């Protein structure tokens, strides 16, 4: 696609220089704010470095990692995060499919549907978290009045999960459904029509034709949302602050770094979270063959 015709070397060189120059600001910013800090976090994670005890710094090797990994809190939080991630992504995938289908088939009111579902996408997560928290709160909420119960939703782990996951699902399903809609659009109508002529039921057409053709789009949507859900912070911070065993890895990282100011220990948590994200991405790309570059349109 790109023009690769032979040009004079001078022209090619100036083009190369311009290319680098145009990319330089963006690349520099991205490197300075992500790559450098993560390396710095790696360095900090090998130190005893607590801002409350400025005189007590020093190299401690892997002690911080040992302290984190040998502590039940880390593993519990990791499990919590994975449960919330898996549950919300699965529900979103199903709901997102339904939403995408409605948008795809809506011959009228498409603009209304689009605008409506973009509201949860655009709304501030903290606001969404408060809205759901107040809705389920036994004193201010309407949910208990509606269902005629007096349950205190945030006093048990499972019911806190229900509210947290619902909030996440509500907020992010629209994004998922738009990515899936884009996938729908790529399914050649001929194939679907041909299957119908051959007598395949709607269900069969969905499972045998549409979904396999949409597989790349689904994988990308699921990967993006999985990594996004794994970072969950705002919702939990607002709704339970990690009580009732709903703490996520981001919450424990934040608490260690920012509330306890233990940068050494907190950085070890940070590095481990980063490692988890890499593992998840690796599993998706290698295991399921999610081809991001191709799918996202980068095909030079």
């Amino acid at each position: 696609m790109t023009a690769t015709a032979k040009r004079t070397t001078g022209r090619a060189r100036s083009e190369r220089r311009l290319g680098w120059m145009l990319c330089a600001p963006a690349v520099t910013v991205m490197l300075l704010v992500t790559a450098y800090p993560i390396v710095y976090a790696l360095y900090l994670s090998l130190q005893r470095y607590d801002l409350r005890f400025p005189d007590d710094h020093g190299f401690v090797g892997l002690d911080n990692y040992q302290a984190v990994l040998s502590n039940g809190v880390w593993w519990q939080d990791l499990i919590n995060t994975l449960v919330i991630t898996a549950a919300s992504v699965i529900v979103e995938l199903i709901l997102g499919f339904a939403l995408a289908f409605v948008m795809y088939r809506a011959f009228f009111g498409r603009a209304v549907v689009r605008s409506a579902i973009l509201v949860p996408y655009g709304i501030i997560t903290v606001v969404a978290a408060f809205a759901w928290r107040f809705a389920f709160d036994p004193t201010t909420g309407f949910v208990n009045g509606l269902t005629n119960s007096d349950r205190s939703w945030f006093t048990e782990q499972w019911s806190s999960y229900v509210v947290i996951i619902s909030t996440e699902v509500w907020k992010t399903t629209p994004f998922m459904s738009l990515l899936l809609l884009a996938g729908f659009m790529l399914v050649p109508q001929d194939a679907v029509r041909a299957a119908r002529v051959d007598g395949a039921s709607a269900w069969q057409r969905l499972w045998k034709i549409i979904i396999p053709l949409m597989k790349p789009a689904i994988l990308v949507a699921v990967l993006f949302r999985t990594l996004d859900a794994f970072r969950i912070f705002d919702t939990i911070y607002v709704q339970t602050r990690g009580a009732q065993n709903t703490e996520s890895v981001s919450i424990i990282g934040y608490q260690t770094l920012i509330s306890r100011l233990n940068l050494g220990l907190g950085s070890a948590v940070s590095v481990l979270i980063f490692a988890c994200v890499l593992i998840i991405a690796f599993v998706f790309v290698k295991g399921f063959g999610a081809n991001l570059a191709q799918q996202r349109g980068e095909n030079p």
Partner: protein
Amino acid sequence: MSRRRASDKAFWAGGIVIVVIYALLPVAWIVSLSLKPTDEITNGKFLPQHPSFDNFSDVWKDPQFPSALRNSLGIALISTLLAVVLATFAAYAIVRLDFPGKTLIMSGALAIAMFPPVAIIGPLFNMWRSLHLFDTWFGLIIPYMTFTLPMAIWTLSAFFREIPWDLDKAARVDGATPFQAFRKVIAPLAAPGMFTSAILVFIFAWNDFLFATALTSTNRARTVPAAITFFTGSSQFDFPTGQIAAASVIVTIPIIVMVLLFQRRIVAGLTSGAVKG
């Protein structure tokens, strides 16, 4: 056949209604909560019996909120501007120019889009405190710009692939330098794509809570999402449900306006990267 079509229509209309209720119910709830006077907050009803704007006037009187709103707007707008400008340069180069390393840039950007922000707040905090960027506008603008650049670069690249580049070639044949060609010919054509990525960047910066709470500590730079969680009730122990709801409504208005005006563009932006360009 026509009966089938009618029932079909009813089915999809029902679907649309359900989708709209799903999307808007929590918003309607927070609006209704914000209109409840103090003595109705705990009555457990969905709608206010005697709507009042007391919570809104309370929020404006709280010294935190007006400055938080100003910070949010300023920080989000500047981050948007910077991110879109930098991303436009990069995306143009990636789509149009031949140079080694562009695949690396694209995949690097993708990696950053998946980066867990909590992994760098500690180091950033430590860096910002020595660079005196802690609790300043720029201290938030820099991370917002960084985390939105990947999205902006991808979206813009997708848009730029659609632009008829022959015009650019023609301009260059006429003796324009690549940069002139970019400015005079391509930039106007690229505007819609830039606008779309600007909306997406703005929504991200408007939304962020983690950086805002970790890298600020006063009204000087604290943005609305952080300020909402720090609201004061009428005593040290009061929990200001009504004011939180009112503030939430105020900051949701710009989002709703944007969504109503630009829904087509936002959808195009969110899906552009995913559809093969």
